[in-house]
């Protein structure tokens, strides 16, 4: 038995500095241990909680690992067909312009099968928030190559590493949508360290606040891990992400208030 270091005397409401937001349900998430999806779900829920918009927000879940996202948010949600979330969000926002609408999508959903819906929702300047989880792999179907799989990266459908001559190049769709006049805020973040989690939360907050301005799409990419797909422990995966994903997908804002950020 481990030694007890509990300090029950300080467990009072005024001393509470962090607890799970009520905008998340009590359902245990189905994600693998250490998966960034859970962290991003929590940040979105915290932003909704802090903005006091739980009764005004409609979310759209994708197909992929986060297909069951609607089980975890205590908000009204719709489940889209693979890649179609931005089209659903367009339909919702056009009939409910006063509500807050967001999509939650992975790399296969957003950058492969849903490329057209993504590009055109961004180009039309739909007044929505798009949260894009990029872990460079198809997690749910068992670790196949994604549009964002790195060159040389092994997956179950590129078992000897992604050969770009044969399989094509990874798609930097975030850079692509930043070029479109319909996007207002485009940023790339990560959630594997406390400091990055705090920055990501600020970005998600801005992405939701922007809907009040009616200036176009706010697009937040989160470079995340897929421990199971990468066949690493969660702690190893964080190191791999820093050493391999981040050099190819550098973190930071690409477009703020409708203006490209100069590097």
């Amino acid at each position, binding site marked *: 038995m481990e030694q007890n270091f509990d300090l029950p005397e300080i467990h009072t409401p005024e001393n509470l500095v962090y607890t799970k937001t009520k905008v998340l349900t009590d359902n245990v998430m189905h994600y693998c241990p250490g998966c960034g999806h859970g962290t991003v779900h929590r940040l979105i829920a915290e932003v909704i909680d802090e903005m006091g918009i*739980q*009764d*005004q*927000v*409609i979310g*759209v*879940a994708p197909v992929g690992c986060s*297909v*069951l996202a*609607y089980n975890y*948010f*205590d*908000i*009204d*949600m*719709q*489940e*889209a*067909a693979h890649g*179609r979330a931005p*089209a*659903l*969000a*367009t*339909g*919702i926002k*056009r*009939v*409910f312009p006063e*509500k807050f609408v967001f999509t939650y999508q992975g790399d296969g959903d957003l950058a492969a099968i849903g490329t*057209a*819906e993504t*590009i*055109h929702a961004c180009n039309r300047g739909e007044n929505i928030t798009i949260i894009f989880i990029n872990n460079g792999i198809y997690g749910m179907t068992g670790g196949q190559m994604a549009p964002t799989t790195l060159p040389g990266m092994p997956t179950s459908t590129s078992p000897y590493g992604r050969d770009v001559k044969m399989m094509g190049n990874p798609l930097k769709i975030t850079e692509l949508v930043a070029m479109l006049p319909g996007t207002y805020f485009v940023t790339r973040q990560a959630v594997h360290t406390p400091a990055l989690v705090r920055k990501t939360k600020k970005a998600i907050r801005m992405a939701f606040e922007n809907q009040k301005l009616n200036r176009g799409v706010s697009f937040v990419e989160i470079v995340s891990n897929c421990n199971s797909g990468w066949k690493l422990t969660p702690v190893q995966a964080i190191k791999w992400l820093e050493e391999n994903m981040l050099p190819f997908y550098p973190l930071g804002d690409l477009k703020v208030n409708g203006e490209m950020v100069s590097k």
Partner: protein
Amino acid sequence: MKELRLMKGNEAIAEAAIRAGADAYFGYPITPQSEVIEYLMAEKPHERTGMVVLQAESEVAAINMVYGAAACGKRAMTSSSSPGISLKQEGISYIAGAELPCLILNVVRGGPGLGTIQPSQSDYFQATKGGGHGDYRLIVLAPASVQEMYDFVKLSFDLAFKYRNPVMILSDGVIGQMMEKVEIGEQYPRLTNEQIDELYPWATTGKKPGKDRRIITSLELDPGRQEQHNLKLQAKYKKMQEEEVRYEALNCEDAEYLLVAFGSSARICQKAMDLGRAKGLKIGLLRPITLFPFPSKILHELATKVKGMLTVEMNAGQMVEDVRLAVCGKVKVEHYGRFGGMIPSPAEVLHALETKIIGG
């Protein structure tokens, strides 16, 4: 004082949508139905009623925009023609699975593939047997006039919301393109957000404090629960078959020979019937208005009274299968069809009846 207008079928659909209090139209141009979105864009329905009209980047996006808006309890619709309807099938399956109400117009052209832009009825199977993947049905209405194009829009929305099920108007290039006199109905108001909250508690309008969240999905990983969902859908389709069958019976009382046709083919058959009657042949016409639910019962009854039936379709023989199922071998049923955009003439139809049924 009734308001009468000379309109194309496609224009009648568009005007009817505004008048029915539709909230949103999402579409993508394709011949022969592009007048629907053109008329809507010209009419500025956002000024007339607040209705949203948006040209999507594809048929796939358009049907999914319909999904999003329909899941909010709004009256949403799309329109297309055959190749575009094929693209929409994924979304239609999801909409049926998630039990969302909406209206889909198919102004059918000949196929398969890119086919022709000329009229056809070759999407009967696709419309009435589901169309996309999974066990589902649409309510399918087949207008035979521009007036019915107009009238069926409000009816479609009413049925769609009554059953929480997509409704398809299965038209064709003849009805979509031809101009006829239309009696324009009253302007129904769009529902307010408060009315939607009251009428449609399932709609995702933002979770109300103290109430459960609403989830619109067609996903159920537990096979037992998915089976329950399928059974619920089947019960709904059975109720439609009991309560929503619509048809028109012309000269069926004394008919010895029966023509069975829907949409523009029924118009041609009406003339063929007149030609035959002038020659002393006792011909009747049964025009299914709902293709699903199919008017099987009346056909079953007529099968004991007539000597033979001929289905006339602008396809290679699709509805004929449902007619044969309905009459259950009691009487001879043959099919006459033209396809690939060809339209049969009344004389041709009468000749087919005389050779295949009367003399056959």
